């Protein structure tokens, strides 16, 4: 939640006297308040946190950070269904590695996990 996510401004308008924008985050679009970055223009990138643009960012940095956050699963956390995620977290079996106890040698053998496996572990 503390992590802000870079996004690209698609259009700008006004709502309740407040400068607002539609911002694209690697395919997910959200309404974003521009009051803290009023001179942001369509096509520019900014660091956006909980619906507020907080600082400009160059395009290359924005794209790299978006890719990293996607890899870390943070875009899913930010824009996915939180109830679904909470339910998974609350109810999912824990596939690794504690069924055999935390000190099991098997756990060490699995250490070189692929990102896909790590993602499974998270769910």
């Amino acid at each position, binding site marked *: *939640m*503390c992590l802000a996510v870079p996004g690209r401004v698609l259009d700008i308008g006004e709502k309740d006297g407040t400068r607002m924008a539609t911002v694209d985050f690697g395919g997910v679009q959200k309404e974003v308040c521009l*009051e803290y970055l009023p001179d942001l223009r369509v096509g520019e990138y900014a660091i956006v946190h*909980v619906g*507020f643009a907080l600082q400009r960012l160059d395009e290359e940095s924005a794209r790299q950070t978006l890719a990293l956050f996607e890899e870390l699963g943070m875009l899913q956390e930010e824009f996915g269904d939180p109830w679904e995620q909470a339910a998974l*977290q609350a109810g999912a079996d824990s596939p690794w590695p504690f069924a055999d106890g935390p000190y099991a040698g098997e756990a060490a053998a699995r250490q070189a996990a692929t990102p896909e496996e790590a993602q499974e572990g998270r769910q």
Partner: protein
Amino acid sequence: MKYIEEFQDPALARRLLDDIHATVTRPWALMEVCGGQTHSIIRHGIDQLLPEQVELIHGPGCPVCVTPLEVIDKALEIASRPDVVFCSFGDMLRVPGTGRDLFQVRSEGGDVRVVYSPLDALRIAQENPGRQVVFFGIGFETTAPPNAMTVHQAKKLGIRNFSLLVSHVRVPPAIEAIMRSPSCRVQGFLAAGHVCSVMGVGEYPELAARHRVPIVVTGFEPLDILEGVRRAVRQLERGEHTVDNAYARAVRPEGNPAALAMLEDVFEVTDRAWRGIGVIPDSGWRLSARYRDFDAEHRFSVSGINTQEPAECRSGEVLQGLLKPHQCEAFGTLCTPRSPLGATMVSSEGACAAYYLYRRLELKTVPAAATTPPQEASTVV
């Protein structure tokens, strides 16, 4: 450097690592303040790529983790009221209070809603004039300005059925508290980039000078973190202790002036309790007198809550860098993401969650009687 190929620019990563290896002559302990940095470090194995003498200590930079149990319990009590719509960010749903969490409150009939932005909560208040809408305002300096703007908007638009349950925290007093601790081992800080994109770097020079500790403003990408470590180690080896901005593409020295002005208007600095750590002077914000009408704690009577921290949870020590998650006896046994004892295991930015997610059990001391694990996996960092 087995995993260096995973970096976006492996050649640059190798150059940065070579430079760090060539610079280090003595042991140094650096603290990364931000939980997002912790996850990036663990995911990419950056701590294992660094020279043995450079230790990365995970700091208290997860707002979900440091929200005190008492505040969670107040949230649960308010959310349980039939006249209330309780709005929160999604990562608070499974943070354990005394005995339950917001997820359970909803299953018991509470109207708990997850919003992307605090402005969404304000819209819900506009659409439900007959109900009280409460937004759970937690977070560091990155989250406080959006929440401040939302309260400002509520006042401007005359929306009376909206209030904020406030538990905002500030990073510099936490750094101060860590440095003052007699057991502190931290010699340099990687400051949280996004916090600084709002606040600028103005609060740090005095801290760096007073505690003779380098503070390097650092981003989240693996190369950002390597560069932050490189600059911090270089300062330490030279005996320097200044503030250095290694994340200039997102952090301007003055921060975001409009956000700072709004913070100044809506909030005032106050002492704040940190979960597992205790009260840190001047480490939080509360609504200023002009906006006190929007304070959920004033609007609802939630005093006298009896909180009970699980005795087994050592997240306070983890948050202060005194203990690595895997060194806690409850890690992975009594405490898992499914059944967390503390927020550090359930929060997406928590250090315990990072260790669990990325299977950092190899860091555990393997008992002699256990099956001999592969050589690489028994390495203690």
